[in-house]
């Protein structure tokens, strides 16, 4: 063929291409408009650093290479990159790709880094970038700005904070839930800044709805992490409430490679989301009805007796006895005047009740799973009790046989049975994403799924677990809160505190574990930190009372509104009064760093604009880019971004490395690192205070603090003066606490660019993970509970499926049950489904032209193609999405991958919408009031967990109609 065509085709192509030989720039058949061409020819849009006229070969050149990464907390959030600079600007970045496998039996982690990382530098030089301190020159949000000097900007912010101190006290200054996006140094800086000034700050992890309440309720801890290669040991991989192809591209290959290795991949999502294409089985569960599915799977396991009784007896509360009259656990206080938290088994060898051990899981007698009996009490009466298992079996049999559950969850009885048999007989790894935590009844969904793993013995062993994330950010906490550097002896001080807390905890409970001690310390630290429960903060300060006390929107099983639960909780002592968020002390100065509440807080585009922000005399924002919320600031302080400041990543266990981030280039304009901004602001506050004759303020603990000391205390006498100092301190801390090898140095880090972590540190995370940490094999959570029989830090000291708190019993949720999502925002035909977008972490990359050119460049909502046809909606039409509260306009993308009862949309920046109203405006975020039971052992509020998530939005009901053209 080649011979024949070697000479002829050229002429043929000439002929066939319709005389294309004469084409020139001006006769492109519809290729380009005059403006496009003039732009191209003049090179007007060219920026001086990227003249690309060179021949290709000359492109492959650079001046300097630095280590880089991105702190956008996407989980893995620690990918090691090489950053290439040319002429003082970042030219490109590429994955380092030098991460070893745990051992040769497992896939390695390379190349670690996705589209967001591979194109990050495009964000540095884009129009949404902030370059100079700015002051608004019109109304808030009007879009009129005046460039000002750093001195003026800091003076105005300092004066506003001092005004708040004078008028309200230190509680007048609020740092509104800064995300970790800004980086380890910046997050530590914001924490340190707030700590030194006695500021109030809603807990960020809870504010963003990443607190998995059901996991905490069962295990007494919320973070169940694993290294990604643990999936390679699983026979069945279940993914639910997640979409890794969007949210975790660098780890996705562990799924596809496990599939090649023979694992069966099961995706449980309402839509056929883009990760489902590589599954074996799609379980098309109805939106937020997962609890019905998993309870039915549990029912089949019990009914067919394929559950693992030894594991259930040892690990869970299912053999614990519950009173039939009041639904409470039978306690020693009632039986013999012992501890109120000493509970019982029925021991068939002894033929009587026996105390369940509190100091370990292992019980040497013959506890029975399925028992009921009458028990004599101390007061001479008797009471009927039964095991949790017996109660569970009865409830499941009554409500969750596959035939009964199928209409509730949309999964056929046959498939439910198949899943039960698979999970009961195979090593099953469950990855649960964050969508459950964004579901009103997400706690029930998680409890039901974990029950299935408990019944099948699927945790604490290789290739198993109910996994989400571990978060090793103790280095950030250390710099955020310490009074001494490592070199100054902070570890000795910490050890002393730990001993005191150990003594205190052990004196109250001799059976307390090390994990209990660390948890007690975390609870105490949270009280001192100024951190408050976000839902309470929003209810009291941001006007959410208007939305969250509507009885018609809440779970019909609840007799009280959110506000009434809050009052009752405070009265009964379920809620520590320090967290009440006194309505008398409204925020006067609000600080934002990496927080875009107009998108992030449900209905924030209304509540913050209409209720919260008008109360504030000063809103200042430390940001790298113009977000919708930043546009409403009074003062904008421009911050350096990744590649422009020294930093390190945080470690989420999926990828067990911490990566070095060097300052490759200077930030643009006058931007400074956040740490420098805080340091200088401290100096300015002291200076202005002196000028105003103010000497001291009283912090939250009632301790007076000198203004003149602020900067010295912030920098620890100049030891932590800039980002480089802080990174050095991070390394010292990590080496001292075992996260890094003990002799590890900053110099070594700078040479190697990343460190494989050698342990989970010496703090709470170590006990949360509760497994020996290995660098040469995969890691999984809960091993110590299974292997060493350590108790769980729960009320019952066991993995607990029965919650005997009064509010849970009242709500009918003592055992996990399925409940439909209440009609938050009214009753409408479609259920809202969504989450993180593909091309952005939150809104960071969304408004960047490079990334916007990877899709339609504007917000879309996916709608089932058949449903759209029936409604006269075509692909590309603008539609109005609405509920009883508000509305939003988006472009329709028709897809067969969306169920007929759903609409699917992901995150967008509000200013991409008409009137800056993203779909988030209608989502309300109704918190589940039972989660205010913050006195219950595993529901206590401490860093990142506890108290209601103000973020429920999955499966709320909306409607859609075509926008009529004007």
């Amino acid at each position, binding site marked *: 063929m*080649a011979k024949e065509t070697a*000479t*002829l*085709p*050229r002429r*043929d*192509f*000439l002929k*066939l*291409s319709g005389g294309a*030989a004469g084409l020139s720039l001006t006769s*492109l058949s519809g290729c380009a*408009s005059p*403006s*496009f*061409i003039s732009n191209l*020819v003049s*090179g007007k849009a060219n920026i001086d650093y*990227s003249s690309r006229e060179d021949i*290709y070969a000359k492109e*492959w050149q650079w001046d300097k290479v630095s280590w880089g990464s991105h702190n956008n907390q996407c989980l893995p959030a620690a990918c090691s990159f*090489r950053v290439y600079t040319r002429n003082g600007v970042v030219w490109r970045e590429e*994955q380092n790709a030098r991460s070893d*496998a745990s051992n040769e039996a497992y*896939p390695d982690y*390379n*190349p*670690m880094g*996705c*589209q967001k990382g*591979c*194109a990050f*530098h495009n964000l540095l030089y884009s129009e949404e970038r902030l370059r100079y301190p700015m002051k608004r020159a019109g*109304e808030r*949000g009007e*879009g009129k700005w005046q460039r000002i000097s750093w001195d003026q900007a800091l003076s105005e912010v300092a004066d506003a904070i001092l005004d708040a101190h004078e008028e309200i006290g230190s509680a007048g200054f609020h740092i509104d839930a800064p995300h970790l996006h800004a980086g380890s140094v910046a997050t530590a800086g914001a924490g340190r800044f707030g700590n030194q000034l006695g500021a109030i700050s809603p807990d960020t992890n809870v504010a963003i709805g990443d607190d998995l309440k059901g996991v905490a309720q069962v295990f007494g801890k919320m973070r169940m992490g694993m290294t990604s290669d643990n999936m390679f040991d699983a026979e069945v991989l279940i993914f639910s409430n997640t979409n890794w192809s969007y949210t975790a591209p660098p780890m996705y*290959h562990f799924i*596809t490679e496990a*599939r*090649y290795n*023979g694992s069966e991949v099961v995706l449980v999502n309402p839509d056929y989301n*883009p990760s489902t*294409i*590589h599954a*074996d*089985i799609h379980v098309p569960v109805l939106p937020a009805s997962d609890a019905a599915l998993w309870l039915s799977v549990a029912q089949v396991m019990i009914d067919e007796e394929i559950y693992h009784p030894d594991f259930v007896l040892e690990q869970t509360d299912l053999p614990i006895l519950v009173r039939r009259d009041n639904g409470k656990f039978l306690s020693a206080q009632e039986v013999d005047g012992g501890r109120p938290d000493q509970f019982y088994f029925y021991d068939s060898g002894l033929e009587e009740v026996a105390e369940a051990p509190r100091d370990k899981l292992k019980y040497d007698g013959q506890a029975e799973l399925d028992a009921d009996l009458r028990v004599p009490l101390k007061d001479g009466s008797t009471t009927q009790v039964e095991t949790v298992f017996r109660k569970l079996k009865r409830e499941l049999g009554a409500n969750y046989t596959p035939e009964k559950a199928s209409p509730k969850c949309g999964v056929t009885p046959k*498939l439910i049975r198949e899943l039960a048999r698979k999970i009961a007989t195979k090593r099953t790894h469950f990855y649960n994403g964050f969508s459950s935590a964004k579901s009103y009844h997400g706690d029930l969904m998680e409890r039901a799924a974990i029950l299935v793993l408990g019944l099948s013995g699927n945790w604490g062993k290789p290739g198993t677990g109910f996994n989400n994330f571990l978060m090793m950010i103790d280095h950030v906490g250390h710099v955020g809160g310490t009074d001494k550097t490592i070199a100054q002896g902070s570890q000795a001080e910490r050890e002393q505190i730990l001993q005191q807390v150990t003594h205190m905890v052990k004196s109250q409970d001799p059976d307390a574990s090390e994990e209990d001690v660390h948890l007690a310390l975390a609870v105490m630290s949270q009280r001192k930190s100024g951190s408050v429960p976000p839902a309470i903060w929003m209810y009291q300060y941001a006007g959410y009372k208007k939305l969250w006390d509507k009885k018609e929107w809440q779970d019909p099983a609840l007799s009280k509104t959110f506000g009434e639960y809050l009052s009752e909780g405070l009265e009964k002592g379920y809620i520590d009064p320090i967290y009440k968020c006194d309505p008398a002390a409204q925020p006067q100065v609000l600080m934002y760093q990496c927080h875009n509440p107009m998108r992030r807080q449900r209905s924030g585009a209304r509540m913050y604009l209409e209720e919260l922000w008008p109360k504030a005399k000063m809103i200042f924002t430390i940001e790298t880019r113009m977000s919708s919320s930043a546009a409403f600031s009074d003062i904008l302080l421009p911050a350096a971004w990744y590649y422009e400041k020294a930093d390190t990543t945080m470690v989420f266990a999926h990828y067990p490395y911490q990566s070095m981030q060097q300052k490759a280039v200077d930030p643009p304009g006058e931007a400074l690192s956040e740490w420098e901004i805080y340091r200088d602001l401290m100096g300015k506050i002291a200076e202005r205070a002196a000028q105003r004759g103010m000497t001291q303020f009283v912090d939250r603990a009632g301790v007076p603090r000198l203004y003149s000391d602020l900067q010295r205390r912030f920098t620890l006498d100049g030891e932590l003066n800039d980002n480089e100092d802080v990174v050095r301190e991070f390394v010292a801390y990590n080496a001292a606490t075992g996260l890094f090898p003990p002799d590890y140095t900053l110099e070594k880090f700078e040479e190697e660019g990343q460190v494989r972590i050698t342990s989970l540190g010496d703090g709470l995370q170590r006990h949360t993970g509760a497994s020996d940490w290995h660098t040469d094999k995969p890691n999984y959570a809960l091993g110590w509970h299974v292997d060493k029989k350590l108790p769980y830090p729960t009320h019952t000291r066991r993995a607990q499926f029965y919650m005997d708190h009064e509010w849970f019993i009242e709500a009918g949720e003592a055992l996990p049950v399925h409940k439909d999502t209440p009609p938050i925002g009214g009753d409408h035909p479609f259920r809202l489904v969504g989450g993180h977008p593909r*091309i952005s972490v939150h809104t960071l990359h969304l*408004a960047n032209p490079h990334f*916007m*050119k990877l899709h*339609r*460049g504007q917000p879309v909502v996916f709608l089932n193609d058949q449903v759209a046809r029936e409604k006269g909606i075509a692909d590309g039409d603008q539609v109005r999405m609405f509920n009883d509260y508000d509305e939003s306009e988006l472009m329709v993308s028709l897809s*067969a*991958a*969306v*169920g007929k009862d759903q609409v699917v949309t992901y995150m967008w920046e509000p200013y*991409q*919408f008409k*009137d800056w109203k993203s779909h988030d405006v209608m989502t309300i975020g109704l918190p589940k009031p039972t989660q205010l039971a913050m006195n219950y052992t595993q529901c206590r509020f401490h860093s990142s967990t506890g108290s209601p998530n103000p973020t429920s939005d999955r499966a709320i009901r909306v409607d859609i109609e075509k926008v009529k053209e004007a």
Partner: protein
Amino acid sequence: MKMLNKSIPTKQELMKSDRQIATVIDLNKCMGCQSCTVACKNLWTERDDAHHMRWMSVATAPGALYPRDFEKKGGGYDKSGNPQPGDLPSLVDCGDAFTFNHQEVFNEGNAQNRKLEPTSALGGSPEWGYNWDEDQGKGEWPNPYFFYLPRKCNHCSHPACVDACSRNAIYKREDGVVLIDQDKCEGHRHCVAACPYKMVFFNPAKEKSEKCIECFPRLDKGIATACNRQCPGRTRAMGFLDDENSLVHKLVEKYKVAIPLHPEYGTSPNVFYVPPMSPWAFDSDDELTDKMRIPDSVLESYFGKEVHKALAILLAEREKKKSGGDSALMDLLISRKWQDRFAEFTNHPV
């Protein structure tokens, strides 16, 4: 680079190469993340005269793909080796080059009365753009289906672009990479029309055609192409087809599980795809079946009849693993050591 010592080389000479570099893309691993797209774009086409070009692209299939409807635009050869007429894709077909109005939204006192939105390079709201039909797919609930189809120049063994060029500006290097000599190209665009994959793009500012250069400055240093090395899904393998130790050779020649896209176009392309094993379909009672949900006819329309054999091999080998046995093929597709995918192109850029 090849030295062309004759003043007028024959097409045969221009098409000749000593060896053939090839890429395998595993569709059972591709998640459509566009990392390859941005890796390529930032390296080669992030410039004002090339925003509309995506030498590397990923589209949702079935769909219009990229450039839009390229499968309907002709080019290539018929069964007898006769060249086929081809149409030129428009700027919009090439994915457009949107611009945005940040200043108007942020800084011009418009409050919330303006939104950030794309403007087509032709002016006005976009009619279509790159990846416009992302994640749409085909099929009917509960059996929707789609897969991601990454595409780049196939560096064909019988490249229609070389054949069509009136300036003899297109040639194959010794390693099989097809390049357009930018000094010789005069922008006649016969190559654009002739390429049945529409992987040659016109640069209207320079009045020249441009295409994937297989990152030759990297290859020359033993570094894999940016799209291949930067793929987090580890979908890619690259190497010389005649190198029996390379993964591409094993997947293409030995196990025959990697097959070309549209082999009927007659250009002998050198990008090969491991076809997708899709999830089990549901029957009319919503019960799971043991049939994969992407219809055979759909896969055949992309990859020809060979796809059935390739899928049968993949399924049989995976079944061995599922039942606890070994499969050398599955281990190759896993590639526990990532660098094993890239034959001699394993150097790091730094």
